[in-house]
């Protein structure tokens, strides 16, 4: 596909000669009868910003706690820099973690919180103050050095926690829902700060989140986790544009799924028969489907155009009636009901003022999309 050919960009996972920083080798973790992680194999490379994304209870936090050393795998090995870290206790690992609750020590000042790990490392005493100063200026909190954690705001606490976990210059930084406690605006600003700091320090970041937007924004690669298994591991654009399953397509963003029978036409072109008295959808697929295989055509709402008249330049067109309009300011989502009863979502940028908007409820409209706009999924 067109979008995975950017070999000049940072993509160590595509280079077979690269040695991974972390590798999970057939790792299984059970709690009693419950299998939290199920025979999982995964490589994470140096300088990556890797996101573990999934619903709560999917096992992403367990993966992170195994990296930190708070849980041991039931089976399999975890390698960090070529070394099996299974028997190494958390205090001996070159891994630091930023906790969801920040876990700042309430009885210590901001500066002492940051110095806490350094005092327990082999850094000479004379260098500690300088390092603390450096971390404070990295997160722009120099004037708050002598405050206690309860004397600063939530956003500042988050930055202290980040500075404290980065102070020992770990090979790997783990971030457990780091922005979960911040309000939306602050969260978006902080996402860019995180990326900036990750780039400046060159540390490998592994972030756990259930917020797909956050993962898309910050990560170089995303692993979608469900029921203790990896569903898909890929860069954000591939996860979004080329999901490998209905689960991923549905979990990340909004999607229309149309079920039908595949009829191979030529090369990777397929006609998808989805309705008896309607022309088949023409789509392309990298994966081969045999004739009459059940397939699911997945297309994002923003790739579906909505017009009053039937467009002549699009491969796929279908007529319907506007059922709902969700106005989000910058964009509007239209729910259009087809004669078959199926509802298709189409998105349009509101580049005109609302008074000049062209469609309203119950209008008859045409939906259209090109043959490469969607993907074909088997399950």
């Amino acid at each position, binding site marked *: 596909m067109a979008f995975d050919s950017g070999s000049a960009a940072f993509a160590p996972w595509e280079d077979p000669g690269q040695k991974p920083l972390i590798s999970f080798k057939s790792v299984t973790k059970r709690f009693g009868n419950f299998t939290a992680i199920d025979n999982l194999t995964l490589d994470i490379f140096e300088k990556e910003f890797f996101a573990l994304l999934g619903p709560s209870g999917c096992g992403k936090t367990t993966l992170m706690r195994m990296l930190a050393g708070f849980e041991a795998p039931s089976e399999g090995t975890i390698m960090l820099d070529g070394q099996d870290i299974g028997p190494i206790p958390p205090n001996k690992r070159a891994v630091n973690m930023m*906790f969801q*609750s920040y876990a700042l*020590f309430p009885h210590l000042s901001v500066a002492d919180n940051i110095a806490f790990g350094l005092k327990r490392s082999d850094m000479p005493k004379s260098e500690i103050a300088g390092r603390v100063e450096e971390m404070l200026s990295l997160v722009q909190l120099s004037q708050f050095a002598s405050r206690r954690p309860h*004397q600063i*705001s939530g956003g500042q606490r988050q930055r202290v926690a980040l500075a404290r976990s980065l102070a020992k210059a770990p090979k790997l930084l783990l971030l457990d829902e780091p922005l979960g406690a911040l309000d939306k605006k602050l969260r978006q600003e902080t996402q860019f700060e995180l990326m900036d700091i990750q780039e400046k320090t060159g540390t490998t970041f592994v972030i756990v989140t259930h917020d797909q937007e956050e993962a898309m924004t910050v990560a170089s690669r995303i692993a979608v986790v469900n029921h203790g298994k990896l569903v898909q591991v890929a860069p954000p654009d591939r996860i979004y544009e080329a999901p490998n399953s209905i689960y991923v397509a549905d979990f990340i963003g909004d999607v229309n799924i149309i079920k039908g029978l595949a009829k191979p036409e030529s090369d990777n072109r397929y006609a998808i028969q989805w309705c008896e008295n309607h022309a088949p959808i023409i789509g392309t697929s990298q994966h081969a489907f045999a004739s009459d295989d059940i397939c699911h055509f997945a297309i994002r709402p923003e790739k579906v155009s909505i017009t009053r008249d039937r467009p002549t330049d699009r491969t796929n067109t279908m007529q319907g009636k506007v059922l709902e309009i969700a106005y989000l300011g910058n964009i509007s989502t239209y729910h259009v009901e087809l004669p078959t009863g199926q509802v298709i979502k189409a998105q349009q940028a509101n580049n005109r003022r609302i008074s000049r908007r062209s469609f309203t409820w119950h209008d008859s409209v045409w939906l259209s999309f090109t043959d490469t706009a969607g993907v074909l999924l088997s399950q």
Partner: protein
Amino acid sequence: MNRRYSWFNITSLTLGFAFLYIPMIILVIYSFNASKLVTVWAGFSTRWYGELFQNEAFLDAAWVTLKVGLASSTLATVLGTMAAYVMVRSGRFMGRTLFSGMIYAPLVMPEVITGLSLLLLFISIGLDRGVLTIILAHTTFSMCYVSVVVSSRLASFDQSLEEAALDLGCTPFDAFRSVTLPIITPAVLSGWLLAFTLSLDDLVIASFTSGPSATTLPIKIFSAVRLGVSPEINALSTILISIVTFGVISASLISKRAIARQRREEQEALQV
């Protein structure tokens, strides 16, 4: 506003406090009585306080009580904190309920039985009764009070703080010493104070485990009173009351100030 001070309120308050404090007030007043007869008022005097400090037997008993109180409350605090830490942190294991029940059982055990069983133990292992046996006995019954106080604090303690300490390079002991302990210090201190107070006023267990070489103040007072109440005892009791009052008031002031300061600082943080 006047509604808050209705006659009914004032009467209930007066009755309640009178019930609680009249005995003690009488005791304090009579400790300043010049007369040797306890029940006949013969003018103000501090002579019994002077005589009290001449009385070797009382001073010895006071010294023993203080030694026992300090040693047993310190031991009980160490053991009780350890027990509380294990019970709260070890999660679920077979027989956990039984174990925690066993830690708290001495709270409801009749003191006579605790005293008797300790006496039997000391006799069977051939330990001479004296200061050491009272310290051991007081440690035994007061450590469960400490562990109740400390474990209620630990239950609300964010465990990720300890994990953060481990993550930053602490050994488990170092994490406890440099993170957990400073945070739970107020609870540990109030546990210590509780144990100290319990040891100070215990009569039953001390009388089972003390020997001829060591008598505590409560035993001394109890046996002196059996021969008739002397004004010296009143003076001694007044001193004890002042010590306890001072301790309780200062402890509550300290914690009140700490809370007020934290509130104020949190308010300031919100305004940043």
